């Protein structure tokens, strides 16, 4: 039984006087206990919206969420808000992209870590602070006793992200959702954080949903990878699968278009034409069609369904990249 089962999750933003935006459209994926699942895609493809929808953290107004988010077989979307609050932070932790803005600037770090323990573990402030100290130490923040009294702005970006991780993992949740946790950081710091995350996840058996636009990050971290484009999952596969034999033209294009440090391919990079804004509505076919090299007449017309591949993955494409082993 999967720990998290997202089924046909859609989020539509509706703003007065503007066309509704389908930020996430029929997103489905599962996360098994202890598993690390990647969610990759370019900016604006709906990664954050999906994760927020799972957590029930989308702004209350101006959007419609449909589908199911089963966590332990409980649908989080239909849960009473107070029950959901009981789970957030305790069963599911979350870390965000920008560690500075994600920490309250006027509250000492210690309190921000401690309050989650007070809330879910019923600790007293004193006890919670003591525990918080241990947590900060565990995520590699030097001199944690002093840090407890400091404010977020007194820490560097990497340290802040560590603090956020400490908060998210304070109650030993079974699922951690990390939304681009390293995008705002330098590579050397990114390496520190990723290593830390991996260790913590491995040690505690926490499942991880890793959201990123960096293919390299998922390549080193995830068991399964979901590639998203314009609000939909277009391809899902185990990471070796995905990087070895991408089926969706978009996945393939992406992989070919990023320069790699380890091989100098020299000369021109492969490029995907157009830009992510060159979309057509999903109902009219594949959103990627305008940019796709493999587009065929069938790509335009009806919605293209996400269909399971025989290797346990899934694919949403009418004209996928052929593989050696025919599907």
């Amino acid at each position, binding site marked *: 039984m999967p720990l998290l089962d997202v089924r046909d999750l859609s989020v539509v933003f509706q703003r007065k006087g503007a066309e509704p935006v389908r930020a996430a459209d029929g997103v489905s994926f599962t996360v098994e206990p202890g598993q690390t699942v990647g969610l990759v895609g*370019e*900016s604006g493809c709906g990664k954050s919206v999906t994760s927020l929808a799972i957590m029930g953290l989308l702004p209350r107004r101006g959007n419609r969420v449909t589908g199911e988010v089963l966590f332990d077989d409980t649908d989080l979307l239909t849960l009473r808000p107070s029950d959901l609050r009981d789970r957030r932070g305790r069963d599911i932790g979350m870390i965000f992209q920008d560690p500075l803005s994600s920490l309250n600037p006027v509250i000492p770090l210690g309190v921000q870590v401690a309050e989650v323990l007070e809330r879910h573990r019923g600790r007293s402030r004193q006890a919670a602070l003591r525990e918080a100290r241990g947590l900060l130490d565990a995520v*590699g923040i*030097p*001199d944690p006793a002093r840090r407890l009294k400091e404010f977020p*702005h*007194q*820490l*560097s*970006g*990497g*340290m802040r992200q560590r603090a956020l991780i400490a908060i998210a993992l304070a109650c030993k949740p079974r699922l951690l959702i990390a939304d681009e946790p390293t995008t705002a950081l*330098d*590579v*050397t*710091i*990114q*390496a*520190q954080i*990723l*290593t830390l995350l991996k260790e913590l996840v491995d040690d505690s058996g926490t499942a991880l949903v890793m959201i990123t*636009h*960096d*293919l*390299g*990050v*998922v*390549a*080193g971290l995830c068991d399964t990878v979901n590639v998203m484009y314009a609000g939909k999952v277009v391809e899902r596969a185990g*990471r*070796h699968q995905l*990087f*070895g034999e991408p089926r969706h033209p978009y996945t393939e*294009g*992406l*992989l070919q*278009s*990023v*320069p*790699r*440090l*380890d091989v*100098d*391919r020299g*000369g*021109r*990079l*492969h*490029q*995907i034409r157009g*830009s*992510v*804004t060159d979309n057509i509505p999903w109902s009219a076919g594949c959103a990627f069609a305008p*940019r796709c090299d493999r587009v065929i007449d069938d790509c335009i017309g009806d919605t293209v369904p996400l269909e399971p591949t025989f290797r346990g993955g899934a694919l949403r494409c009418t004209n996928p990249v052929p593989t050696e082993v025919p599907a």
Partner: protein
Amino acid sequence: MSETLVRIDDLKVHFPIKSGLLFDRTLGYVYAVDGVSLEIRRGETYGLVGESGCGKSTLGRGLLRLVEPTSGEITFDGVDVRSLKGEQLRLFRRRMQMVFQDPMSSLDPRQSVDSLLVEGLKAHDRHRDKAGVRARLRSTLDSVGLPASALSKYPHEFSGGQRQRIGIARALVLGPELIVADEPVSALDVSIQAQVINLLGDLQESLGLTYLVIAHDLAVVRHISDTIGVMYLGSLVEEAQGDQLYERPLHPYTRALLSAVPIPDPRVEDRRERILLAGDLPSPANPPSGCRFRTRCPWSQPRCTAERPELRIFDDSGQRVACHFTAEILTGELRPHEVRAELVHPDEGRTPEVGSELIVTRTDLPTP
């Protein structure tokens, strides 16, 4: 070997930190660029990498004298750039141009593409011949892959990649010899990045441009650069040909950097050994003594605290490195040791300061 187009010698850019009672006083300096020397040959691409805040942009801007260097020499095609004054400098700018990181904020939102491009021509008094100007704009747009119809549009109507093309077109319109590209692709989507990188390559080929490309993405730099300089906290710690650097990084920082870059290939990733650096980049307002990197270096020795290593040529490959123990580390004679992270407080100058204004004017408030 082609001729040297740009020579930078011991360039320093220090920003004063100011505060004062009635009038400002200098309290200290941000040592943004602190003694950098390098050469860029005509027609080549020099890539500059380093972590955020290490002074890459400042170096690029100092080179173009968009910020005033504190000391050092800049020679451009035999011209002493630092001695140029006022109008001389302004006219000289035609030869060296810049492309910015954020394609939105570097384009004046009030100007159409047309006027953005014509502006440079006007500044150098080349806008008199109307027909010639039109033709020039068209060909420039064409060279960056934008249709002529773009001329009447405004920056916000374009996608990120297109905006960056406009930024490049603006730099190109004056026919410069050197282009300093400050993170030209880091604000772009992955799928767009390649377009711009290719464009830069194509343009270099067809126009014989020289680039100084600044980026924090090593892979990108490696892809486009002939020579790569690695910066750390205001100074160059290593410089080499692209492949050379990847194959044989000499400086501990370069090694760590290279090992930290994730590679979109699980097979590679699974096998990689990482050199994890402890702690953060120290504040450039208060750099460590001696070797700037010593606070995070797993190979650091007492000597590193006392003496600042010079950037020197390591061997006949031409690779330059600024480390006292290059050879020892390379041979494995010196073993890495555990480093305790030193806590770095983020940039002091950036905290909002209260109290400079006698009376705040929140002008969004009506008064009675």
